[in-house]
């Protein structure tokens, strides 16, 4: 651990942090522990947790890149979901695991439900029938990579959304809607993504834009949900009209 961490030779102050700990083997209940951390300017939450490891306090947490790229270190800091590697340490910080998911140990939560959803959603371009799309492929007209692929899949938006949690599966969550939006721009993808978004609960979004306000990379899943919803209804109206006037339903979603 300490190979990643500069030794704190001249701390400016000593901060107190509170961490919610849970050990499935020893204690039954999660409980808060208080630690004192020597503080230097620009210290982040992750560095505080690493400091604890240096002091042989083996607090379990997920971390990898430490630069807002991998999305591993999502947790609740002072009640707000965020990435530990980009949240500056404050005196009296309360650090706890994400509330929407079962806790495996200390700050590590069970994200297997999220990972299973990836399989359900078929997050790869559906290639059958792609050659039948007429006209200019959608993504040629729109360079989407700088928008959607910024998502680092950190689950912070899933935590912040009031309509999605691990239990009620009526709405998969903002992150998945963003992925559906990204795939809908792929030129080879023939699956009806707006319809898939509706089936995965896009109508449950209440436009609170909490996902947009907590996203560490500045994406707005709520706007993407709105665009998918609008496309789904436009499809429906267009197909309804076509059926009314005796035409075939449109091929391109």
């Amino acid at each position, binding site marked *: 651990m300490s190979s990643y961490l500069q030794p704190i030779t001249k701390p400016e102050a000593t901060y107190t942090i509170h961490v919610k700990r849970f050990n499935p083997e020893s204690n039954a209940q999660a409980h808060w522990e208080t630690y004192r951390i020597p503080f230097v300017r620009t210290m982040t939450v992750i560095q505080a947790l690493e400091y604890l490891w240096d002091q042989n306090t083996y607090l379990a947490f997920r971390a990898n890149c430490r630069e807002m790229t991998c999305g591993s270190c999502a947790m609740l800091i*002072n009640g707000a979901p965020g990435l530990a590697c980009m949240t500056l340490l404050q005196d009296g910080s309360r650090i706890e695991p994400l509330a929407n998911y079962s806790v495996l140990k200390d700050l590590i939560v069970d994200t297997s439900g999220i990972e299973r959803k990836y399989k359900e959603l078929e997050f790869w371009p559906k290639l059958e029938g792609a050659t039948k799309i007429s006209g200019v492929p959608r993504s040629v007209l729109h360079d989407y990579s700088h928008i959607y692929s910024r998502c680092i899949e950190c689950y912070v938006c899933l935590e912040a959304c009031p309509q999605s949690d691990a239990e009620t599966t009526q709405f998969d969550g903002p992150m998945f809607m963003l992925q559906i939006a990204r795939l809908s721009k792929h030129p080879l993808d023939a699956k009806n993504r707006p319809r898939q978004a509706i089936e995965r609960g896009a109508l449950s979004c*209440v436009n*609170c*834009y*909490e996902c947009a306000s907590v996203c560490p990379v500045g994406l707005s899943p709520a*706007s993407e949900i709105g665009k998918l919803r*609008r496309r789904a209804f436009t499809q429906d109206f267009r197909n309804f009209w076509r059926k009314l006037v005796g035409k075939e339903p449109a091929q391109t979603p």
Partner: protein
Amino acid sequence: MTNRNRNLGYYMWLAHRITGILLAVYLFAHILTLSAALRGAEAFNQTLRAFDNPVVRAFELGLVAIVVFHMLNGLRLIALDLFPSWSQEYLAFAVLLISLGVIVISVPFFF
């Protein structure tokens, strides 16, 4: 239910739900008070006279505030559904300002 800073859109949503419930409750209360009409014109006019005091007027003004907010925020939600790239925060500020304006203008109508 953690205490943390949430964006304005979240509180607009919360207020929309709360005002919605309040209005649903008011709808019943309104029908019930109006049912005095079933007992004849005099009973109804008596009820109206009983409600003709400053406390009830203040309550009615509060009701106008609730109705206006719920209505304008509802229109904001529809606008966001139709035009997802519009700024939800700008619309939220517009809703709050217009609501305030309508309430202020309405005061002389009630007092």
